[in-house]
């Protein structure tokens, strides 16, 4: 696990996400994306922390899903303060709170992947 960092709101943390599957396989998108909380605005840090709390991320046990055609599998690793956990979850994500957390982390990673490649 990479070293956690301190953002402007004082929340130390990091998010890692790897996306597999989907209607097509893009080699350039199969790489893990890392988002340090240092790079986030305070509201973004707070949003991730709040969504992680609502989803009970550090203690949840997502039910294993069979591979659905074209559905994605997300491997999300969150480190917030002194807690850290990796969860692997496939679409459709039935827990609404966990779905919102995965969505938020995924969206944070999109811009970074594009910026890194261009």
């Amino acid at each position, binding site marked *: 696990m990479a070293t956690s960092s301190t953002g402007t709101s004082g929340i130390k943390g990091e998010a890692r996400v790897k996306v597999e599957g989907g*209607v*097509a396989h893009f080699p*350039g*998108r199969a790489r893990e994306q890392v988002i340090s909380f240092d790079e986030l605005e305070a509201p973004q840090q707070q949003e991730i922390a709040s969504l992680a709390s609502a989803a009970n991320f550090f203690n949840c046990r997502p039910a294993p899903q069979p591979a659905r055609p*074209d559905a994605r599998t997300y491997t999300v690793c969150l480190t917030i303060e002194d807690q850290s956990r990796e969860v692997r979850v496939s679409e459709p*994500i039935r827990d609404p709170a966990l779905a919102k957390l995965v969505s938020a982390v995924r969206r944070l990673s999109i811009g970074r992947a594009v910026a890194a490649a261009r």
Partner: protein
Amino acid sequence: MCTSAQRHGLHCILPPYILSQIAENGSPELRAQAMRTLLVDPTIRIIRASTAGPVTGTIARRRAAAGNILTPSPLRTIRDAGGEPEAPGAVIARREGQPPVDDAAVNEAYDGLGATFELFWEAYQRNSIDDAGLPLDATVHYDQQYDNAFWDGTQMVFGDGDGELFNRFTISLDIIGHELTHGVTEKEAGLAYYSQSGALNESISDVFGSLVKQRVLGQTAADADWLIGAGLFTDAVQGVALRSMKEPGTAYDDPVLGRDPQPGHMDDFVRTNEDNGGVHINSGIPNRAFYLAAIAIGGNAWDNAGRIWYNALLDPNTRANTDFAGFARITIQVAMRLYGSDSAEATAVTEAWQTVGVI
């Protein structure tokens, strides 16, 4: 003993369940004869007399065989997730029979489901995903900046794209057909979504997705572009589509997305644990086999070539773990059964699989 006033040889010899099989799967002459015989049966007469009830696939086929066709119609419901990661979406945006709404994604999903339903019914006499008139449900505007579409086991789910690399996923008709075909495959062969059977699952969705588009556009095999997902990329992407059935591996080469990894020959088969064992990668091989067969047969690809692939999908020998070579053998057998051992169709299918190195 045969007691009907008009004697039918089939009726006197064969039990009803075999007659039913012949009525569905026999040659045109045998189907008609079996159907006439079956209609003597009081149960079938009741079915035939009932025009108000649901039209299931089996009954519809029997009616068709008897020249008593009641064309089934789709039952579509398009929901709007409003940018939330939830499906089905909370709001019903358009129901069957309602006019277009002021939302392109809703209308594209509605029309795309209709076009897919029409292909399966009019070309193969299949009544919806389950061949029993299953309602067709879809959710659009799923999540935010969501660049994907998938079949969740009960419905199709479409994102709006991220606006940077991808447009909305309903923009591509073959993608809608692709997703719905996953439902058909799940109901029929149930091809396991991993490695070769998974790549076959993907390829079959590409085949019928492309046929939906070709049929709507009125294109022959020679006229078609054989691209999957044309229009999905924004101008920022260096590529034309997600995949090319004609030339696998040439659809895109982009700094962000990488290079199209699809092989078109077994020599280049990719062994990987990613992408469920390469289901979207190695599907290029059976995709190209279908393209080659369709081009060699000529005319509209949804006719003879599509009929061979469709009947192969329904063949009892196509099972969850069927691999490329197994499916190749089945398509060849089906082509021989439908068109004759020495037919141009059987030759075209055999040579197509040989060309891509599967047999």
